[in-house]
């Protein structure tokens, strides 16, 4: 077996040193009736690298590859070009095969990278501090809600109808088991968000208001009025960003008054990967840092006075505080954070702004072309690289019809909101820099045929 270095001669010698007659002697604490008598049933014997690769390749070929077709899906996961060097960097064995940096003297690479990542995330989100990553955007949002609960000692959270429905679903699941009360609503196919509803719902029991920016339909709205209303009632504003590339073009949530900003970092540096692993981003105001979940890298000095980095403020964490910790999170998503920070370093401010304007320009062009199809209506008055169309027919069958023509044409709101009749004709279309002119032509033609 190619991954096991011990040879039979080693095993015999080691058993002798250990004083065991056979390997089974070392399993003597396992009751006889719990021991398997032979190899596990059903699983084939070991296989060569070539044989395993052949099996996995065959499975991979049963999927339609986003890069092989005109592709326009978003809704929380975005296809951007990731520079080859970013993927090379995350495959450096010293990053790939290291552990959580508990021994800082020999983990400065990971720790300095995380310090840089935290700085980038904080600046991008317009916050003072950020942590070293969470699992993904949806779990980061729930952690932000319970953090708000701890800060305000209130338990009602008002969630905008523009928040990704899977994120809302995760929060609803968790709230069943805690004392948190969530107010939610379904979105409407209008150009305006539900900011007015949010503002009028805020009361003295409100812990936080949660808004997504840009929202699930791609709409962009100034968060300042909601932030002011929340703060006037002693509540917090939590902003969720599922497409951080947008922040190369539009103002950050922090600038508009958000107290906690969380997000999904997948769209910078991390591939689509059918939904995971991704990387949760988490930033907030400095005064709330001791209520934050997750790891934090901080600057310090070593015994010779040299600058270095360590994991810090760990008295918030499970391995110290156990049941009193701010979260149970341990392993997070550091390698994806490396992919994010490496890609963002390659972009820099200049590149991020170029990438963002390119995305917006492609989306504007596609939106105009698609809205010109008879019966198709553009819902948004504002958007970044993603917008919602109201079709004259249900969007789900239209999406499947487009697949027949070899086009992955968007996400139907019927998939995201099964049973919500008013949303069934909604199609969310994301257009990034990866969409070529020919791709947009193909989408236009396929959609035109599919709605007739």
């Amino acid at each position, binding site marked *: 077996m190619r991954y096991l270095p011990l040879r039979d001669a080693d095993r015999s010698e*080691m058993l002798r040193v250990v004083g065991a007659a056979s390997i089974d002697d070392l399993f003597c604490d396992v009751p006889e009736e719990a*021991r398997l008598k032979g190899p596990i049933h059903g699983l084939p014997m070991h296989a060569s690298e070539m044989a395993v690769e052949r099996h996995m390749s065959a*499975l991979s070929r049963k999927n339609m590859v986003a890069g092989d077709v005109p592709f326009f899906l978003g809704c929380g996961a975005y296809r951007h070009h990731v520079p080859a060097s970013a993927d090379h960097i995350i495959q450096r064995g010293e990053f790939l095969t290291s552990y959580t940096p508990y021994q800082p003297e020999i983990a400065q690479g990971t720790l300095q990278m995380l310090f840089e990542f935290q700085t980038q995330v904080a600046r991008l989100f317009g916050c003072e501090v950020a942590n070293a990553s969470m699992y*993904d955007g949806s779990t980061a949002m729930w952690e932000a809600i319970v953090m708000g609960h701890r800060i305000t000692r209130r338990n009602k959270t008002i969630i905008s109808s523009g928040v990704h429905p899977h994120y809302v679903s995760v929060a609803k699941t968790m709230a069943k088991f805690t004392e948190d009360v969530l107010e939610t609503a379904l979105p409407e196919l209008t150009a305006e968000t539900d900011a007015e509803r949010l503002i009028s719902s805020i009361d003295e029991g409100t812990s936080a208001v949660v808004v997504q920016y840009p929202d699930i339909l791609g709409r962009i709205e100034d968060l300042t009025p909601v932030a002011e209303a929340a703060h006037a009632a002693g509540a917090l504003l939590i902003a969720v960003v599922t497409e951080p590339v947008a922040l190369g073009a539009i103002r950050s949530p922090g600038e508009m008054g958000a107290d906690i900003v969380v997000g999904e970092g997948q769209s910078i540096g991390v591939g689509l990967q059918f939904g995971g692993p991704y990387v949760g981003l988490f930033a907030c105001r400095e005064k709330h840092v001791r209520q934050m979940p997750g790891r934090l890298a901080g600057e310090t000095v070593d015994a010779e006075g040299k600058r270095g980095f360590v994991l810090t403020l760990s*008295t918030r964490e*499970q391995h110290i505080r156990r049941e009193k910790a701010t979260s149970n999170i*341990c392993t997070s998503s550091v390698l994806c954070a490396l992919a994010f920070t490496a890609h963002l370093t390659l972009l*820099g401010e200049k590149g991020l702004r170029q990438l963002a304007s390119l995305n917006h320009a492609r989306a504007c062009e596609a939106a105009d072309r698609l809205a010109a199809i008879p019966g198709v209506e553009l819902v948004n008055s504002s958007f970044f690289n993603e917008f919602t169309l109201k079709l004259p027919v249900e969007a789900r069958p239209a999406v499947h019809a487009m697949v027949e023509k070899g086009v992955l044409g968007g996400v139907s709101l019927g998939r995201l909101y*099964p049973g919500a009749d008013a949303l069934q004709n909604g199609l969310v279309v994301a257009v990034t820099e990866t969409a070529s002119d020919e791709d947009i032509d193909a989408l236009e033609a396929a959609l035109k045929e599919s709605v007739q």
Partner: protein
Amino acid sequence: MTVNPSGWRPSAPANEQGEAQTITGNRALMLEEPLLFEIGSIEQTGVDFADVPKRATRLGGLERSRQIGLAGLSEPEAVRHYTRLSRQNYAIDLGLFPLGSCTMKHNPRLNEKVARLPGFADVHPLQPQETVQGALQVINELAFWLLDLTGMYGIAMSPKAGAHGELCGLLCIRAALEARGDMREVVLVPESAHGTNPATAAFAGYRVENIPANAAGRVDLEALKARLGPDVAAVMITNPNTCGLFEPDMKAISDAVHAAGAFVYCDGANFNAIVGKVRPGDLGIDAMHINLHKTFSTPHGGGGPGSGPVVLSEALAPYGPIPFAAKYPDGSFKLVEEENAADEHPNAFGRMVAFHGQMGMFTRALAYILSHGADGLKQVAEDSVLNANYILRSLEDMLDAPFGKSGPCMHEAIFSDKGFEGGVSTIDLAKALIDEGFHPMTMYFPLVVHGAMLVEPTETESKASLDQFIMAVRSIAERAKAGDQSLKAAPVHAPRRRLDETLAARKPVLTYREPEPAQAAE
């Protein structure tokens, strides 16, 4: 820019070894690296884009006007920056990484290759299901083998890491109890448990109580039985436990817990010791997470991503979360999610993550399982246990092994700091190991052993590698027992000496701030 912006001043005196300092702060292959923000510029970029046609924007009047402050690097500078940083990390690729309970084994590169096949890496989670049949099959196939290896009934694939899997298991238990109208409030956790266990129970809304260990390092069965009652929802057991011992009374524990109407959660972090040898389902366990980033070798990546599928007993399986990939009689695969859950999985407790779990880890874990096969996985458990016992028996005359007399260990061996003199403690031995070219073992955990050192070599170490480690530990232990004060200065050969963690926590500096102009001119 100064010659060396990383804080290592060339004018500093020679260190205590009398080594001369260099002008740059570099030492041959050991290269210092400034922060990105000290070498990059907001005008610099490593990516080329086509020109953007000028047209009106539709950004709702929210165009970003202020500078963000994101430093950029050209590609050669970026590759060098991260390559230099990488060389300041210890890694399995470099040597033995015996962190107890972390299972730092070799990460096969075939798995990296298959995870990057475009058919897995470049597929959107919301693509129509007819276009992702291969991806759904991977999830379903891996689920099948994990059930086969554990002898359990159902599985939740979506949890993102071990602690998230613990949460999933406890929510299944809570849903099952609520379904029978039984509101219980307490979760019992052994003192020796990982910190995530009590934190998870609290996160799921439970009150946590400790159960003690006996002198042999196992759960005290009688104390546990005495505490069980109508308020106890679950008991969280780690088996093999964090002292590196199998719980021989596991079945009796399960029976007692079930008799009291509660459920058994097993922390599967240490599954590596028994994979292919013992099925948790045969021990009466109701829920157990499997760290794919431990037993099934998906890379730990410096702190994740992990993946924590949870196997479930027949009693809990109906409550597992959505979504999951189901196989239909015609051979097709379909997600069970919000839309069809009412028909196909009506008692699901809900959804834990936005999409379908850690697909990139599933492909790697499946490749790992198929590579090893039934014979290889059994050998994994046997070699990991043999390696740990070899370390235990080769060190126990030099280091106190508190449970060494009570029999063999499983895949990790535990030692205490008993006999160290002159104020030398576990941390000093650990830091001296760094100078010898090893990653230290887990220190001061579990809490039930004084100055604990938990050593998990894994099965992917050769005998020669173990022998060198044993020699190094013996030599350092001898110095520790002699009270050698020089150990307190270790490490001296690492990229950094011991770091001031108190300073970091007292005055947290968590992001970079550009120096004030006056300081910069200094």
